[in-house]
Structures are given as structure tokens and as C-alpha cells.
């Protein structure tokens, strides 16, 4: 009851306004750009094997992004979104969890899915929306999803996954599972009403969900300082009564540490956690965007120097867990594999016309079946107008 607030607030007799700076929010940094660990820093659980897996995932991410942007420029792909410069947030987040944890992402977290082992073919089939796409070619590129890998299919409307993640985690709690939900979103999406709903409900109903905000400084062209006036997104955690931490999002060890700790806490206490990972969107918002319309090269260059992948590489090298020869082999192999996979995926057929009406409901209703039947008759009448499907209609 609010009686508590009434009773427990310290009493003053002269107006005492508080403001955004009434709370200090430290930022966790573990790894320096040159690969050395800060003195006294607490390391996450990590060994050579897990580190190598993480690093290889980061490398795959970088190569895939690079190649797909090129494919898009060549007109082979309609659309793409990179996570250039902020790959540590998604990959490190996934690495800090268990495979049974649900990942509910925004769209720039393909790294988490890579870490979970989504195959190159699966990525390609989605991007080329061919008939082998798990999503049946229905969504724009990068809207991946996999039940097997507990990675919720991406939805374009922003922030809708936030209250959904609260509900998902509440269900996990009801079942008593050893599982939490991680929910990714950008600092832009955090302005949506659904953000407010999701965080408040998680706190009130004690859902084991990790809210992971990627604060990369921009929402398309809108800089963070036109998005909010408070102390980042972390300062909002205070208002919801949610345990909150701010981290360097380009520091894979900080991401890993925060996520591991958050998971332990969320599960033990049945409570949400908010992580704000500070980073920078080094690339364009998407292949449809040109950032030169709203920011400077200098600003970008400054953040180039914080490359999270290079930072991890430096650490791996320093640890002698990795060497330059391995590096060259890995990147060469990845580039080749991706190129080959593009060539395969772009040749695979579009989904059959029947897929137009499946999955709208569990079973197509009568009217929808009639619409399909009519469509088939029509296509047969004008086969040249519908080249992808005409030949395949029985």
C-alpha cells in the first residue's frame, strides 16, 4: 500500500525537488580496448573453449553483415540490417544464458541467434524468403525466429516484445522451469508505451526477465538526446523498482558478467533485471538509410576505436587463446561459406501459393480456402503474370 511510501519517506518542511541527477549510475567496464583487463575487475565465468565459441560467433557476425550489405548493394537482397560495432551486446547476452532461456529480440540481435547455432542456411533462407525459410518467406530479411533454439520470431512493430517477454517469463515461473527470458530493445524503442507496461508489470508480478537495452545512440536519425532527457535508460529502472546495471556494451566480458549475474538473480528471486549496454550503431540504420544525413564521420570514427570484436581479439591474443593465423583462416573460411550460401539460397524457389493462407489460423477458414481456389484459377488464366507460382499449381 502507498501507506508505506507515505510513512517511510523522510519528512522535510521546505520544498526539496529531486531530479535526474539524484541517482548516480556507474558503468561496468572489465576489458580495455587493448585487451587487458582493468585492475581489480571481476571476471565472468569463461574459459578458452567458451571464449573461442564467443569469438567465432562475433567473427561470423561481422562477416555475415559485411557480405549481406554487399549483396544488397548488388541488388541480390532487398534489405539488410547490420549490428556493426555492437555485436558484443547480442552475442555476449546469449553466451551469459542457458539454451533453454527464451530470447525475445528487437532485430539487431542476430548475434544471439548465431551463438545459439542457427545455421548459415537458415539465415540465408530467411533473407531470401525462399520456401525453406522457417518463416515461410513472409517477413522482410533479418526477421528470424526458431522455436528449436528458443529465439522468438522478430516482429517489426517496436517494443511489442517487451510486455510479451514479461508474460513469457511469468509463464516460465508458473511452470517452475530453470529458465528465464531475455528481452532486447533499443533506447529508441524504450520510449514506447509498451516499454513502460512491460517493465512495470515485470516488477509487480515478479517475472524472471532480463531487460537488455542496447543504447547505441540513435533511433534511425534521432540521437539519444532527442529521445530522452534523463540519465540514459538505466535511470528508469529506479522508478520501477527494478535492479539495474549500466555496462560498457562493447566490452564482451562486462556483457557476459552482467548477464550471468542477472540470470542468477532473476531466477533465484523471480524478479526482473534491467541492463543498459552503452554502445554505438557504427553502421547505417539499415540498407535503406544513409547516416551522412544526420551525423558526422568524426563521430563515427571516434567509436570505430571502441570496436568490441577487436577488443575481444586483443584479449584472446593476450591470453594466447588465439593467434593471427587462426584469425586469417577463420575469416577467409567464413567469407567463402557465406558467399557460397548466398548462391544457393537465392536460387531456391519461393514458397508455394498454398502458403498464402496457412498459419493465419490453425486451419484456414472456408472463405480463405475459397479465396485461394479462386486465385489458383486466376493464376492458371494468366500464368505469365505470376511466374513464381504459375508453373507449380496443380
Amino acid at each position, binding site marked *: 500500500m502507498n501507506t508505506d511510501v507515505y510513512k517511510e519517506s523522510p519528512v522535510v518542511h521546505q520544498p526539496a525537488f529531486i531530479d535526474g541527477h539524484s541517482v548516480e549510475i556507474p558503468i561496468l567496464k572489465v576489458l580495455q580496448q587493448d585487451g587487458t583487463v582493468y585492475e581489480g575487475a571481476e571476471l565472468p565465468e569463461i574459459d578458452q573453449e567458451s571464449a573461442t565459441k564467443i569469438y567465432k560467433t562475433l567473427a561470423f557476425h561481422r562477416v555475415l553483415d559485411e557480405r549481406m550489405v554487399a549483396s544488397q548493394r548488388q541488388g541480390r537482397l532487398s534489405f539488410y540490417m547490420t549490428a556493426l560495432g555492437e555485436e558484443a551486446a547480442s552475442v555476449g547476452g546469449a553466451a551469459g544464458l542457458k539454451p533453454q532461456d527464451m530470447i525475445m529480440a528487437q532485430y539487431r540481435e542476430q548475434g544471439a541467434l548465431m551463438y545459439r547455432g542457427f545455421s548459415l542456411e537458415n539465415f540465408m533462407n530467411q533473407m531470401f524468403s525462399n520456401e525453406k525459410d522457417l518463416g515461410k518467406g513472409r517477413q522482410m530479411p533479418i526477421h528470424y525466429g526458431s522455436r528449436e533454439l528458443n529465439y522468438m*520470431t522478430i516482429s517489426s512493430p517496436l517494443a511489442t*516484445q517487451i*510486455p510479451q517477454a514479461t508474460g513469457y517469463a511469468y*509463464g516460465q515461473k508458473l511452470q517452475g522451469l530453470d529458465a528465464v527470458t531475455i528481452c532486447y530493445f533499443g533506447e529508441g524503442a524504450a520510449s514506447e508505451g509498451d516499454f*513502460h507496461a512491460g517493465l*512495470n*508489470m515485470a516488477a509487480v*508480478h515478479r517475472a524472471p526477465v532480463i531487460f537488455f537495452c542496447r543504447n547505441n545512440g540513435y533511433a534511425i536519425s534521432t540521437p539519444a538526446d532527442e529521445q530522452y532527457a534523463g540519465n540514459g535508460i538505466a535511470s528508469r529502472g529506479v522508478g520501477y523498482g527494478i535492479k539495474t546495471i549500466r555496462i560498457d556494451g562493447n566490452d564482451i566480458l562486462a556483457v557476459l558478467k552482467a548477464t550471468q549475474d542477472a540470470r542468477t538473480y532473476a531466477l533465484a528471486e523471480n524478479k526482473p533485471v534491467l541492463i543498459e549496454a552503452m554502445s554505438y550503431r557504427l553502421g547505417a540504420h539499415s540498407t535503406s538509410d544513409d547516416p551522412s544525413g544526420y551525423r558526422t564521420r568524426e563521430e563515427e570514427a571516434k567509436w570505430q576505436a571502441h570496436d568490441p570484436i577487436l577488443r575481444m581479439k586483443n584479449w584472446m591474443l593476450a591470453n594466447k587463446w588465439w593467434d593471427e593465423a587462426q584469425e586469417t583462416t577463420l575469416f577467409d573460411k567464413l567469407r567463402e561459406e557465406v558467399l557460397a550460401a548466398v548462391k544457393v539460397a537465392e536460387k531456391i524457389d519461393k514458397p508455394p501459393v498454398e502458403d498464402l493462407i496457412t*498459419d493465419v489460423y490453425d486451419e484456414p477458414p*472456408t472463405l480463405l480456402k475459397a479465396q485461394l481456389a479462386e486465385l489458383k484459377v486466376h493464376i492458371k488464366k494468366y500464368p505469365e503474370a505470376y511466374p513464381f507460382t504459375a508453373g507449380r499449381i496443380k
Partner: protein
Amino acid sequence: MAQMNLLHAINNALDIAMTENERAVCFGEDVGHFGGVFRATSGLQEKFGKLRCFNTPLVEQGVIGFANGLAAQGSVPIAEIQFADYIFPAFDQIVNESAKFRYRSGNEFDVGNLTIRTPYGGGIAGGLYHSQSPEAYFAHTPGLKVVVPRNPYQAKGLLLASIRDKNPVIFFEPKRLYRASVGEVPLEDYQLPLGKAEIVTPGSDITLLAWGAQMEIIEKAAEMAAADGISCEIIDLRTILPWDIETVVNSVTKTGRLVVSQEAPLTAGFASEIAATIQKECFLHLESPIARICGMDTPYPLSLEKEYVADHLKVYEAIKHSINY
């Protein structure tokens, strides 16, 4: 069998659903301890515990967002929106999320377990924000099912079917009838089919079609018409989406005339869809234009409610007009 009002029938259906399936969860504003402002969830928290029946914070987009996530997880959420007039903050979660969840994922994920209950409709001196009938807003949304019961027996059977249906269902409850409509309801479990209209009274001269609380109105009009020697076939659509075209087509093919009545405003209401479809399917059988007797194209008024609504007299006039066309 027991005498129940519509609220009891709903409460009874929820009780059965939560007893049979421990993953069923009921929530919404004031739904917990208090049992909802209309008391539809009365006693459920006591019986099933706070984790399975609870108050949510006051945020409809959150209630449905949470429900979507819970449904995707495999639980069986039964979410209440306190008044249908307040469902709009959740419109995005329903129309862009619930409705498209299965489709967009290629069936990797779905929220088929979701049921949304909400009291709708006028006649309670509620004015523009406690009287709306927003079913048409949802009827334009493939992926949703939309159901409206007309009495306690229908309410229980259709609600149980909605909860068990593997698609997201919006279940509109006619709040004017919550206590006013009383009838015999089996105590045991039963279901009524979704997507099937019901011929409530067979007739030969004209077809009357409505749903929910409006059924009472057309039945009253049919009685008046009967006194004039006009035989009305009365159909309860029951499911608005996907709707039972076949039953309506068969009826109108037989009678040659159709009056559709809805509480909501005329323009772009669901009666328009019915008229559009039936004029096509029954073109050669229609002996007079299809009439739509609806609310006027204004917000729902307060002091002029009586004048505004599609009452039995207006429906009766439409019947006569159609017959004498």
C-alpha cells in the same frame, strides 16, 4: 442444470477452464481479489491462488502484451479488458501481434491459447465511453476470432470453446445482459461451435440477423411482425470472424429478404460486410435491398440514448419496409 445469469455462466465457464487446465490464468484490472468490476472472476483468486488469478497494473497494452507472451509460452491466458471502450490502447498488441503471431513466424510460434474477454455495448446510461460495440474494428483483422454470446447458455458454451480454440479469440460480453439475462445452464462442461451461426427461429418471409444483446431487439421486432402475419427467420451470428456465410446465404436464398441489426454505428460496421457479401451471393434471390439497422454515425450519446439506438421499433419498420418493397 441451474438458473444462471450471464455473469454466473461466465464465471462458471472460467472455473471449469481453470480446473481442467492448470496452465489457465485469469487476469486484468481488478480481476483478482475483487473479482472484477462486474464480478465475472469472483471467487477465482480464492480458489486458484494469486498466481493464477490476479490484478494487473492499469495498462491495457500491457495486459494484452503480457497475455501474448504468456500464450506464446504455452500457458492459457484469459485476459479481461474492463470495458470494450478501453480495448483501444491494446489495439496494436491485438491487431499487429496476436493476429499475426502465427503467420509471421511460419507457425514456429503462436498465441492460439489467448482469450480476451471484454464487456461491450450500450443501454446502461454509460455514454460514449461505457457503451461502445467495437467488434467491427477487429473483424477487419485476419488471424483473430471474434465471438459474441446472446444469453447465459450461449455464453458458457462459447466461452469454453473460445478458451480451448487454438486461435486468439476476442470474446465480447453483452454487459447490459450480465444480470438481466437469466436462463437454464448445464452445470457440466459443454461447448458450442465457433464460426457457426444459429437459426434461433425458422421463418419464411424475411431473415433477421444480429448478435449479442441485439438479438433480444430483433426477436421483439419479429414478434411485432408476426402479429402482422410476417414470418421472420431469426439468426444469431454468434461468431463475427470468421463468420458463417453459408447459413446466412441459405436463409436469404429462401426468404429473399434480409435485415441486419447492430448496436455500433452504421458506417463500416460489420453489418456492412454482411450486406456486401449477401448482395453478391444472393443477388438473384433478393426481393428487396438488404437493410442495416444500426447506431447512428456519432459517438454513443448519453441523454438521447433511446433515440440513438437501433431499437425494436426501427427494426420492425425495416421489416415492413422490406416486405412492402
